């Protein structure tokens, strides 16, 4: 595993290897193929941040540009999935998902259930989330809790290049609809990635750091924020266990509960808003199933219950950072009755 590539390259490689392996895999989305009406003589733009670059020429006819009409092309992707293809549709920003919610939560998510297990919908919807790019209220949200709420959808948030490739390959091979969340600020992150294909199973959290004093449960870009806090705390003699959930649906409850049973202290770090979020979900899980192990109240580190601010100074304050995580850990480790 000596080779190091970026998160963006890892996603591109996963798409290319799956398209190579399985002819039914197609890619579609806005600017995926180089602009509507492009003769294809120049390389495709490759989507808004270049993830699908190079695929248009390599797989003729299988990378489709779509109009700027999310409700139409997400519906088309879901329909194509029910008819035997394995579409990977790119919906630039999760913030735009609202216009195609019926197709996603009332159609794709329900087919397997409503048709007695006889229908499968192997569609992947790739989308960007998260603050930090000065893109303001309508292009910066973390809406994965909305999708986690809906039975029938699988929800995936890779934090590293290795996970990005393995989880996207699993998403494509999976027979259920998968909403695949890519954080904008992670695309240039480099890390070791095998050249060969591999699939990472859903519902398996990753213990990215072991420790006995407190458990930090987190996901997506916040994994790196939590690790940075854990490094800082280790210098002060506090050892944190950091758990990257990797998928919020299905959820690996066992890894979370086993860790909290060991540490007795829980901090959940979630970039989403605090209400009905992954932070509240994990807190409730632990309160219900590991109450006896808790030695302090659970701490949540989240964004506030406001839209993402336009002001850069406010946006920086809006996002959870390592210092807030470290403070939360000190609160749970220092708590006395």
């Amino acid at each position, binding site marked *: *595993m000596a080779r190091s590539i970026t998160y963006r390259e890892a996603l591109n490689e996963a798409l290319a290897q799956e398209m190579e392996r399985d002819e039914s895999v197609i890619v579609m989305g806005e600017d995926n193929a180089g602009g509507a009406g492009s003769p294809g003589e120049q390389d495709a733009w490759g989507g808004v941040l270049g993830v699908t670059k190079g695929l248009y020429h390599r797989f003729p006819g299988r990378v489709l540009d779509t109009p700027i009409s999310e409700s139409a092309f997400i519906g088309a992707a879901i329909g194509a999935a029910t008819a035997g293809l394995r579409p990977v549709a790119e919906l630039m920003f999760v913030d735009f998902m609202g216009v195609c919610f019926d197709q996603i939560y009332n159609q794709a998510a329900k087919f397997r259930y409503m048709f007695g297990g006889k229908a499968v919908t192997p569609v992947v919807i790739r989308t960007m989330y998260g603050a930090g790019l000065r893109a303001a209220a309508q292009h910066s949200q973390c809406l994965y809790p909305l999708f986690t709420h809906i039975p029938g959808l699988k929800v995936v948030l890779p934090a590293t290049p290795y996970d990005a490739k393995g989880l996207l390959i699993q998403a494509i091979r999976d027979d259920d609809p998968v909403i695949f969340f890519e954080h904008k600020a992670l695309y240039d992150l480099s890390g070791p990635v095998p050249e060969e294909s591999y*699939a990472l199973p859903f519902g*398996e959290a990753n213990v990215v750091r*072991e420790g006995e004093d407190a458990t930090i449960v987190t996901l997506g870009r916040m994994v790196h924020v939590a690790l940075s806090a854990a490094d800082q705390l280790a210098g002060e003699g506090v050892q944190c266990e950091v758990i990257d959930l990797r998928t919020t649906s299905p959820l690996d409850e*066992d890894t979370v509960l086993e860790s909290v049973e060991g540490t007795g202290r829980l901090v959940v770090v979630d970039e989403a808003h605090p209400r009905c979020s992954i932070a509240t979900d994990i807190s409730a899980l632990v309160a219900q199933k590991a109450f006896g192990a808790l030695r302090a109240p659970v701490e949540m580190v989240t964004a506030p219950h406001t839209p993402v601010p336009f002001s850069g100074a406010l946006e920086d304050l809006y996002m959870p950072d390592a210092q807030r995580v470290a403070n939360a850990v000190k609160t749970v480790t220092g708590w006395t009755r």
Partner: protein
Amino acid sequence: MTGERIVAVTMPKWGLSMQLGKVTSWIVAEGDEVGVGDELADIETEKIAGTLEASDAGTVRRIIARVGEDVPVSGTIALIAPAQISDAELDAAVEQARAVIEAGVPDDAGGGPEVQTADVGGRKISYAGVGEEGDVVLLIHGFGGDKNSWLFLQEPLAARHRVYALDLPGHGASAKDVGVGDPAAVLAGAVTGVLDALGADRAHLVGHSMGGAVALAVAVGDPGRIASLTLIAPSGFGPEINVGYLRGFADAQTRRELKPVVGQLFADQSLVTRQVVDDLLAYKRLDGVDQALHTLLGVLLDGDTQRTDSAAALAAIGGAVPVGVVWGAVDSVIPAAQAQSVTGAVRHLVDGAGHMPHMERPGQVQAAIEETIARAR
């Protein structure tokens, strides 16, 4: 022996990618007398934890590397010297060593030997070599292993030999297809193919577990090419084998399932680090590995006993090749008692080691390999 000079104890290079290591605890203290093979310090890298053994005897006069501090590979971490060496001389050496540690990894530090590939019958076979001169020694890993399992041995052996380690088909960075008709022949063919790629007319083979049976198969095919055979806990010298381990390794899908299985390989459970388990899991999840491992299970097992007959293979070579056999005394995968069936071999029993003596007691295994190689001359 140290004679009348200062001997530097240096940070070892364990694995091709290692550039830094840290001492996690010192087992010896300044003033202690040590002999060759005595444990000096516990050392940890990004990938693995292990114990550094003394390669020279003498008095530990200075301990230089602090616990937890990053030290570049080959940086001096302690000094062994006889009493007549003055404190001033030692202090000068310490100062030099500290400067190396403070400087960190040099910018031009290479990643060690280049990993090379050979095309063997349409399969990509990955191998890596170190050592400038001497005979060719080829290291063959066992079931589910790869060339990195020799990380404690390859560099030390390279002081006197050209030492190569390969990934067998189905393993490491080699092609994952092991064939359907006769996978054992495919594995042996990969070894022969690497020897061909190296232009080696003669080579010493060192095989671990399933790799021991592979080495024997290569020797049966072309005994004149094999200068010596060192078999480490080889498969096929008796019916008994821990099928729970073999099937458990092949079937494990998660870290939770894999960790206790990997634990059965070692006497010292502290070697089963998260990184070791994660690396194995990453390997097992590569496309084609699951099928390769299950195909090889069928080669290794006949029901709940070993299918391979290595004793017959050894008899077929008929004493033409010097053979050494090394076994961990507390091997819980293949019982050490099967060493008695390795007819005509010099036997080395390694106390306190499980199925991976080359990782748990590399110094003793290195000595056994050197002893076997020496008999080929």
